């Protein structure tokens, strides 16, 4: 009985949570709805809010922006940045742009894959890390670079990966 009780509470807590996020999304939509090229910023912000882009959010955005769902999906599918799958608490993006690539980005990526035991696009079983690749976030002078959530880590060496990831593994570590 206690189990079902606690799950009931859990649901009640979750529902208003999502409602609040949709209300935030509404404000964003109000600003971008009629702006030309407004879809991409809306999707970026929505992904920030929800952690990823679930189907109901995408359909909501399509309806509110008066755009075909097929087009919204087409834009989401075009950019690696967007994810339609729930992701871990921390999203690691390894830059494989030209500068990072030639300065060892690939080795950095290999080291992270090995450390976490996941491939690109996957999430660790404990839901702490998701791994993605990116094409240049404008930190070429500091190559090879990776981003973990909004933190940029510069001149990353494969040997230092464990050390870089460690703070994010702590249970109390919140997203920056």
């Amino acid at each position: 009985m206690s189990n079902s009780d606690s799950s009931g509470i859990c649901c009640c807590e979750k529902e208003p949570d999502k409602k609040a996020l949709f209300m935030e999304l509404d404000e964003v939509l109000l600003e971008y709805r009629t702006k030309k090229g407004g879809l991409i910023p809306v999707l970026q912000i929505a992904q920030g809010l929800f952690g990823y882009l679930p189907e109901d959010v995408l359909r909501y955005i399509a309806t509110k922006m008066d755009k075909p769902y097929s087009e919204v999906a087409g834009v989401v599918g075009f950019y690696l940045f967007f994810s339609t799958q729930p992701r871990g608490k921390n999203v690691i993006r390894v830059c494989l742009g030209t500068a990072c690539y030639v300065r060892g980005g690939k080795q950095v990526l290999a080291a992270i894959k090995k450390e976490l035991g996941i491939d690109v696009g996957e999430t660790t079983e404990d839901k702490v890390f998701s791994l993605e690749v990116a094409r240049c976030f404008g930190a070429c002078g500091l190559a090879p670079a990776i981003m973990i959530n909004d933190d940029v880590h510069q001149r990353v060496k494969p040997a230092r990966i464990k050390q870089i990831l460690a703070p994010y593994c702590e249970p109390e570590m919140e997203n920056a």
Partner: protein
Amino acid sequence: MINLTIDNNAVSVEEGTTVLEACKQIGISIPTLCYLEKVQAIGACRVCLVEVEGVKDLVASCVMPVSEKMVVRTNNRRVREARKLVVELLLSEHEGDCQTCDRNEDCELQSIAHDLGIRKLRYPGEKAARYQDESTIGLVRNSEKCISCRRCVTVCTQMQTISALFPQGRGFKTIIGPAFANNLDTVTCVQCGQCAAVCPVGAISERDQTDEVWAALDDPDKVVVVQTAPAIRAALGECFGMEPGTLVTGKMTTALRRMGFDAVFDTDFSADLTIMEEGTELLTRLKRALVDKEQVALPMFTSCSPGWILFMEYYFPDMLENLSTCKSPQQMMGTMVKTYYARKIGKKPEDICMVSVMPCTAKKYEAARAEMNDSGVQDVDIVLTTRELGRMISQAGIDFAALEDSEMDAPLGLSSGAADIFANTGGVMEAALRTAYELVTGRTLPFENLHVTPVAGLEGIKEASILIEGTLPEWSFLEGITVKVAVAHTLGNARKLVEKIRSGEAEYHFVEVMTCPGGCIGGGGQPRITTDAVREARIAAIYAEDEGKPIRKSHENPDIIKAYEEFLGEPLGHLSHKLLHTNYFKKERV
């Protein structure tokens, strides 16, 4: 006017003309794949490359406007090699099973590769992960053959405003399809088949049902009956190399008989029947509104086009009452064959196989609708497109061009000219007015040669007003009323018109909508590729068929009169209501 030089020819063309169009004007044909006249010019496929003096790279002629003193070369080594390379790369990822493809010898990629002199595949490249979509009744998509030209995206999004298709993913892995490359049954596809009509390759086609028809014809226990839609007779000849607009009614009838059909009936007959029912329904609605002061849904919308019906069920469920309850002519024929005709030949409905030949892919869907079984079994069993019939005639070894003419069978094969023009935009309206006006006033419709010219032609939305004067006593409530009608073709135009009506901005009594551009003559099941010139040629043929008939008005068709006397009773009567009318249902937009 802009003066330029193309391949050493001095050319003078209007400002805004593209290099491609300028070339066409002087008889230079540039190969194209993604370009489609009046539909799309986006420079995506790069097949139409030409050299422009002073410009470093070759340019896509379909999107390059002409400019003063421009010097263009369309046929030098550099251009030829570049075009060839572009097509070779397209072929490298194309599933090239030409021999078994339904577009074999009717494929733009195949013929361009041939014209460019490509004789071997230099790049046997990787093929992207692809999929086959057989989720709808009308259409089959095979993305292995897709060359991402986006013609289908443009017609689905801009012309039909359904937006079922859009490029998904990126680069080599791009798939043209519904959101996240799902199947068509996950979106509001109305199966109009305009995507299939513009596809340059075999990536989108109708579901082929020719084998099912052969099986029925081979079955000695089945009475196999065929009906052909008005639009087939003006297009079928194109399957055999005839010019668009060649009328082949008589040859088609002979071919169907030789194939083994037990009776050849005309959807024209049931188009006449539709006019009797729909005309009566319109007059009844007007009477209820004007005399009985009832709340009646007006304007009344025509209901012949199944894509349009699905569109209303998805997008305007609050206005379903405006749709005429009349079944389409295809479905009326199906019901009449399995009741009226079945009784005449002493057969049960289940002993009959009803085959339709339609210019349409949505008709396959319509026949399978759950409501369409008023005879006790499915009223129409198998629906073929014009293209499928063309293939079957070839399979049967029939030399189509050499066939003599013959007449369709009684009692469901005789029709008026009004039924023929169901094939083109404005035609159902004209046919209805020919009958309704005469019914109300006792006089002939006051238009030259009975043609309601304001609603004819390829303009997207057309209107007409007709003042009703000198009514017969029974219809005196219509005296002095100006009947306002409108006609739209393509769902984009239909959407505009319905929105205007819903907002009160426009008021009409009667509205005709056809899903496809130009009406059924431009349907998704017609021989490819249908340009405006082809549409006009087919429409001209249809009007010629109409004008050549001794009977031009539906209510004067003696077999229609007989069918009411012997069987149906009266229009909108108890039996006709049961057999010839239907219901519509709101459909969720998934």
